[in-house]
């Protein structure tokens, strides 16, 4: 007699320890093998885009913080850049340097969370706390600068809210010297651990063409071997003045674009960000940081799309202005949202334990997906 068999549907999340927020994944299983994954999102939806239409341009900035709450500085950076381009504001050079320093520090902090939680997903809990220990030092730097540790409201249209703290440069130098050996420690403990490599290398490789077709950006795209980084390919701010590399995945331990590649790209990007910060704090000019901040932000009628390389990929702001004090429409291209769309494609045929590894390697932030 043939037994009746059916697929098992497993709802992973929204209350699950490793869905990185309130994401629900509907897994269709045959035993432990995945036949389909459907992500259900929207648990964190706050109507950011609609809400922004009822506020003046500067008032939107604190709300951009709350999208990708692990890279709040970069969200402000992108938004400020978009409005400045719309209004044609030239910002002082010192402001540009401060923004780049903050942005790169934020990139390191964001990658540290990604790497630490990825280790925890795979079952190694200690690297998670090591990463958070280092992130804490970056948050301290932000705190002495603007008083906030998570949601800053620091980068304003035309400038920044405060100048750097007198100790900032010295403390940043200290941080860099302390942090470099810690990257090596992380590599020894996690990246080159044989069990970790077995769990992640060759798992769910993302081919170059599929990545491009799905619109994947950021470290996930670069891990697949595409050298595409907006800091180099569509330069903004003062990034052209620094000397740094764009790491790309090469399938060092398995296939190009596998989970290990996506992981190690982030480790290498932290090293490159350190290079940028080192150069920036050497070159930073003196000057006033608030002089270009307009009294009334009233952009002319028009529209603009501005994109920046956020820690998670291409963060784009599309702003339509009708010439009033409030934006007519703001649309955000959220990198996490686009990157999550690859989930179903990647997970097919892998095991339940791999879903966690794959989701962690994509590094999503639900606050940004749902907005």
């Amino acid at each position, binding site marked *: 007699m043939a037994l009746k068999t059916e697929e*098992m549907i*497993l709802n992973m999340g929204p209350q*699950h*320890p*490793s869905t990185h927020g309130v994401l629900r994944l509907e897994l269709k299983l045959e035993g*432990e093998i995945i036949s389909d994954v459907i992500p259900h999102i929207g648990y964190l939806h706050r109507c950011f885009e609609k809400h922004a239409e009822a506020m003046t341009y500067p008032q939107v900035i604190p709300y951009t913080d709350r999208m990708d709450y692990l890279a709040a500085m970069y969200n402000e950076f992108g938004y400020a850049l978009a409005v400045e381009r719309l209004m044609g504001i030239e910002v002082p050079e010192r402001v540009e340097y401060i923004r780049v320093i903050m942005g790169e520090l934020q990139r390191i902090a964001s990658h540290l969370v990604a790497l630490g939680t990825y*280790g*925890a*997903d*795979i*079952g*190694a*809990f*200690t690297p998670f*706390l*090591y990463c958070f*220990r280092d992130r804490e030092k970056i948050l301290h730097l932000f705190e002495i600068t603007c008083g906030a540790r998570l949601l800053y409201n620091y980068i304003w249209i035309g400038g920044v809210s405060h100048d750097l703290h007198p100790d900032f440069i010295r403390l940043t130098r200290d941080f860099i010297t302390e942090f470099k050996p810690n990257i090596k420690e992380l590599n020894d*403990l*996690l990246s080159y*651990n044989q*069990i*970790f490599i*077995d*769990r992640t290398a060759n798992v769910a490789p993302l081919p170059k063409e599929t990545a491009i077709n799905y619109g994947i950006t950021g470290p996930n795209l670069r891990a697949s071997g595409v050298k595409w980084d907006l800091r180099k390919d569509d330069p903004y701010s003062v990034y052209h003045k620094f000397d740094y590399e764009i790491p790309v995945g090469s399938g060092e331990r398995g296939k190009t674009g596998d989970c290990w590649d996506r992981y190690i790209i982030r480790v290498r990007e932290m090293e490159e960000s350190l290079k940028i910060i080192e150069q920036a704090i050497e070159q930073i000019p003196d000057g006033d940081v608030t002089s270009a901040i307009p009294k009334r932000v009233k952009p002319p009628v028009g529209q603009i799309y501005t994109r920046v390389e956020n820690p998670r990929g291409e963060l784009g702001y599309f702003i339509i202005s009708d010439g009033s004090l409030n934006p007519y429409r703001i649309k955000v291209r959220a990198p996490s949202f686009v990157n999550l769309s690859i989930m179903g494609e990647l997970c097919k045929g892998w*095991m*339940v*334990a*791999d*879903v*966690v590894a794959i989701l962690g390697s994509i590094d999503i932030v639900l606050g940004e997906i749902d907005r």
Partner: protein
Amino acid sequence: MIYDWLHDITGSELLAAFIQSWLPLLLFILPFVLVAVLAERKVSAHMQDRLGPMRVGYHGVLQTIADLIKLLQKEDITASANDRKLFNLAPLLVFAGSYAAFAAIPFSGAFIGSQIELGLIYIVAVTGLVVAGILMAGWASNNKYSLLGAMRAAAQIISYEIPTLLIILTVIMVTGTVNLHTLSEMQTGYFWNWMILGGPEFGLQKFLLIPFMMMGFLIIFISMLAEVNRTPFDIPEAESELVSGFHTEYSGMKFAMFFLAEYANMFAISAIIAVLFFGGFQSPFGYLGNSLGWEWLVPFEQFFWFTVKGLFFIFVQMWLRWTLPRFRVDQLMAFCWKYMIPFAFVILIIVGLITVL
């Protein structure tokens, strides 16, 4: 010895046996779990640049007691779709399996629950109960995560029992006994009489055995880690995937039973490894009691050494847990069947040849 003493005091065989069966739990397992849970938290904390529990008592020493009281007063939740009977039976079975193993563990020359001739075989057999309990828990919970965890656990524990048994056989071939007490008594004297260093008989055989005994120790340690679901083999309760595996649906004291069983198991496997390879309760360098002429001190010293060896292996287990990531199910099985079992067989055959020669 303790049994005779209890028998003299109470005058009843039944009462003496009853009291004696409770002794390991009250005197050893419960206090040990209290210490071990705290130790686990402190060890992990200090490995992770943290302090761990600091508030309850000096450096948090009373934290576990506070947690225990909290667990006692928690609501005992049973979902309506649970299979009541199995759901309630499962934690008891899991705990009984790991507790029964303590009957044959020789804590010292004077204190051993029961001098079973087939001690080693008995332990392997009763710990098999744990698998049934885990499967029951997973099935009765009526929860998909629990079921997946239980299925993984059963497959894992049964597979890894094979290399464990093969290595136990290897040691039995050299010693010729499965009585844990006799096994410990054999390795008396100094630490070079321990099985890991080739056993008590001096000669060519001893030196030939040393490399194989060390490899055997590694294999049995790894496979026993897998049997008690500790990292890197904590797949049945993999937190990041299965929430907490087969005991997801348990709360209150039932959860505490699983917890107790886990730590009791940790000590049981450390004890078996200590008896098989590290001289059991024997001191590595003679007894203070013997040299001072205080005969009564020796059993206490033996108890001390046994606990120290057990705790050392528990520390190693914790150390591994907070260092290594976890395997995936198929990798775990492949590791067992492709590497551990063939290696264990080779060791078995070679050691067999050595002992015959």
